[in-house]
């Protein structure tokens, strides 16, 4: 199954990759990991909750994106994911 990929690895952006997974799983690679890991994790969890998405693996490769960038990238990825996987 092709993963959904949104974003880029440019500085101040992030690359979000969504793949189907039996349960929700989040992996974060970030150049600001030490300072913002908890914040990045929280924003991803909260957006997945908003869209009630459980069976997904989220890979966030972050190059120092601000929170709204992460949200925008992830939201786009979630909408595409739902379209492809016919999730309501």
């Amino acid at each position: 199954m092709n993963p959904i990929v949104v974003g880029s690895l440019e500085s101040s952006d992030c690359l979000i990759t969504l793949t189907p997974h039996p349960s929700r799983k989040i992996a974060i690679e970030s150049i600001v990991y030490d300072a913002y890991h908890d914040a990045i994790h929280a924003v991803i969890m909260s957006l997945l909750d908003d869209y009630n998405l459980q069976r997904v693996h989220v890979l966030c490769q972050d190059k120092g994106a601000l929170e709204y960038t992460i949200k925008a990238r992830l939201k786009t990825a979630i909408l595409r994911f739902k379209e492809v996987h016919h999730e309501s």
Partner: protein
Amino acid sequence: MKIYRSLDDLFESLPVVNGLSISFHHHLRNGDGVQNLILKKMNELNITKLKLYPSAIFPVHTEMLKLLQKGAIDAITTNYLNGSVAEYIAEHGLPNQLKMQTHGGRSRAIIEGETIIDIAFIAAPIVDEEGNAAGHDGPSACGSLGYAIEDSVYAKHTILITDHLVKKLEQPQIFSQHVEAILVVDSLGDRQGIVSGTTAITKDPVGLRIAANAAQLMDELGLIKEGMNFQSGAGGISLKVTEHLKNTLKARKLKAGFFSGGITQSHVNMLEDNLVNDLYDVQCFDLHAIQSLKKNPHHHAISAHDYANPANPKRVIKDLDVVILGATEIDLDFNVNVTTDSYNTIIGGSGGHSDTATDSRVSIIVTPLFKARTPIIKERVNTITTLGKNIDCLVTERGIAINPKRTDLLAKLSNTHLPIYTIETLLNKAYEYTGVPQSYDLKAQKIGVVEDRDGTIIDTLHTKKRR
């Protein structure tokens, strides 16, 4: 003068033993082949417990990495380091210590005998048969040899390495009386890496806003005037500030006194446009600067001692009115870090940061408020490179902070329309975008020290903690 054509013959003439102290300069920057040539030979000869005094270390310096991996280097004292050597030291440390000095402090320590150099291996782009040397000509021309001058005078053995030997050299920077031998090689290094080309003036809207703020701040502080002495680096924002200065000087028919430090095309253009009297050049940053040094009589190649030795009462930077500098981090006490990043990776070092900030009447830090989510303002910097008492102004795209101890500057700005805030307010503005970082500590074993120009230890360096 003894002239060698073979490295082996040269080494037979030298007291190469374990525990040797050797020095190099960094004027060939990331094109330097000379340090690699010498350290490769040290490696072949299985020399250990080396003490190295390069003025800077760049990614090209891979032979040093091999010696580090072998455990053959005991200690390193330098002004700036990045690349694989920096990464290795940040992970493993050294048997003895890493000492980060300033450009002026390095010169002072050599002259005062704190730093004792057994052999100075000096890459010299043009050398005459008597042993006089300079950097402005030859296939590996790099311009001023400012950071090698004290080495040439005070090392027990001074060796010139060149790929351009001539009969007679006019206006040398290094004099034959200090030189023991010359080694002639095919090439000093990689031309592309020696001259970085022209540094681009920033076009980024954030950078443009910062530069405009800094230029206006300089003006409102009354710093733009006849005979003003100015230094700016080769960063894109600094160059834009220099361009603003040029336009203002031109419009008001003013002429600056001198520009000092690392010289670029921007500075040369202003000399040739008759907007500044003299360039005091310790290091050329591009080809234009090298060519100008050759032809413009008011473009002077100077030594680190002339430039910034704090014990030299005639040092050029003592007369600076304003210096424009960068920062990787700046804290609520205005301490600046350009040595490590916020995650304890070694990324550079003072160079002349602390020297010029300390001497200049006004020091201005130009930086974005945050870079890739990391706020540049911290409650406490990861490493102190320049003490906050020597930093006067912080200019960002979203506001300016003045060191509260500079009540004189604040008074001059009492009616300004510039966006002046406290540094605490600017930090909170950054947090509005980035969020407040969680607390973390990435410092493990102590591996070295940061030494200010007068020899005072102002901070310690640590290996980076593994996650």
